[in-house]
């Protein structure tokens, strides 16, 4: 049981050491140039193959999970979002699902007891939703902020995002909120897997690995920014070299940065082969992205085929005498 998380933890730690020591031993070109390129290729190719694979599978039936009143009689109020019958309703449902994790939010309602009928308790589950939301948004902000290393001059939207993320203006270099929220959320999700018996029971090594990996990425990044400090002008020279396809290894790039970049590359390469593909899957789930309108509009199954049925004729042949005797109408009197 413990190996489920100890092995991934050790793996992330070893990966870090490999890159840190490797860069120190003069393999910067590998960890800084070769592997990142390979990782991006693996990520894109893997992602595309996976999604194309999903797309190739048919959607034979229209089976949305309906979570509200259907469209029926004109005077009955339809729940257009939870039981959409139009594309626009589906669009809003998906929007809420993707940006606000609406289904997960359903978990979080207040509850009431026999004894303390007026006491409102929030279950542990609201924190799952909060942490999931915090984690994904913080990750997105962190990711987008890194565009300052890929554009020169830096786009204004990146600067705006940085200003927003650094709005507390605390310390020098200024604190980014996402840098606090991301590790905190990851730690919560990790703690949940470790200490909540039921989640611990269902968790696999492949659930722990991405968490440790992301935590490793976040911590190396945070260390570079706030603690050990690195020369970011040199680092940007290097990243710009990568994205302009003229890679260079400038002087003064810290080994810690190679470790950071290597862990990121691992994440990218690992992504398509893992559960992280829920990034793509959330858009494609037929129980959410279809309208509940099959009774009004025929849905076609591309592989629909004819099946043998027990026809009325066979039925009548079988029961004709009894039917006639009972006075039931028949096609053939014989």
């Amino acid at each position: 049981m413990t190996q489920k998380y100890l092995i991934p933890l050790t793996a992330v730690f070893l990966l870090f050491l490999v890159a840190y020591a490797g860069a120190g031993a003069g393999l910067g070109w590998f960890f800084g140039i070769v592997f990142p390129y390979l990782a991006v290729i693996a990520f894109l190719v893997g992602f595309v193959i996976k999604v194309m694979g999903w797309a190739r599978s048919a959607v034979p039936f229209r089976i949305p999970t309906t979570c509200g009143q259907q469209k029926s009689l004109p005077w009955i109020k339809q729940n257009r979002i939870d039981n959409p019958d139009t594309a626009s309703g589906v669009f809003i449902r998906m929007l809420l699902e993707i940006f606000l994790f609406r289904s997960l939010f359903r978990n979080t309602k207040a509850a009431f007891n026999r004894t303390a009928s007026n006491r409102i308790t929030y279950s542990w589950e609201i924190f799952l939703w909060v942490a999931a939301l915090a984690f994904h948004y913080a990750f997105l902000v962190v990711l987008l902020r890194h565009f300052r290393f890929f554009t020169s001059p830096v786009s204004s939207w990146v600067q705006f995002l940085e200003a927003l993320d650094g709005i507390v203006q605390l310390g020098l270099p200024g604190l980014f909120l996402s840098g606090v929220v991301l590790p905190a959320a990851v730690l919560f999700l990790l703690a949940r897997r470790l200490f909540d018996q039921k989640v611990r029971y269902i968790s696999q090594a492949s659930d722990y690995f991405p968490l440790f990996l992301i935590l490793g990425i976040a911590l190396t990044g945070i260390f570079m920014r706030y603690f050990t400090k690195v020369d970011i002008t040199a680092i940007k020279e290097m990243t710009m070299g990568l994205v302009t396809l003229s890679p260079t290894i400038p002087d003064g790039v810290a080994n810690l940065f190679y470790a950071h970049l290597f862990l990121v590359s691992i994440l990218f390469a690992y992504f398509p082969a893992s559960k992280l593909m829920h990034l793509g899957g959330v858009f494609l789930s037929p129980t959410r992205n279809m309208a509940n309108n099959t009774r009004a509009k025929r849905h076609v199954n591309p592989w629909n085929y004819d099946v043998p049925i027990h026809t009325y004729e066979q039925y009548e042949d079988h029961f004709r005498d009894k039917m006639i005797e009972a006075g039931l109408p028949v096609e053939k009197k014989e």
Partner: protein
Amino acid sequence: MTLKQSLTQNHDQLLKKWFQATIDTYPPQSARILGKDVDRFDNPVGAVTRETLEDVLHLLASDYTSDTLEKALDPVIRIRAVQAFSAAEAVSFIFFLKKIGETVMDSAHTREFDRMVDQVVLAGFNRLMKCREDIFLLKATESKRRIHAAFERAGLVKELKEEDLLGSKKS
């Protein structure tokens, strides 16, 4: 201090430990959910167990008969009777009370308390048997209601055999 006073005094502690011990008869992955103190509709097993144990403790601290004990125990036994427990497992949670009593209450009361728990256990066994009988009765009446009753009313029943009513065990 009499045993009953001691029971009232230690009520909260007894209940807490007894509830936890009872819930721990489930696999730990489930026990966490069943043991949580939230919505009784989202977690009926946990809620009913807690409420029943509380009622039983209250009863022990006041006047009780084997009848009232049985009645008080009913909700939790009724649940355990349909879960995949053996008869021993289903009532085992009552025995836990002895051990908990030792740790919580004055040792002067131990023997008296043990005897009290024995009575609860007997009531529990009685109730378990009743619940199991209920279940067998339900099986029979259900299949009857399902087809038999309607057929019978319509005078259509001719050859329904016992085995047909109870399913297809022989297959």
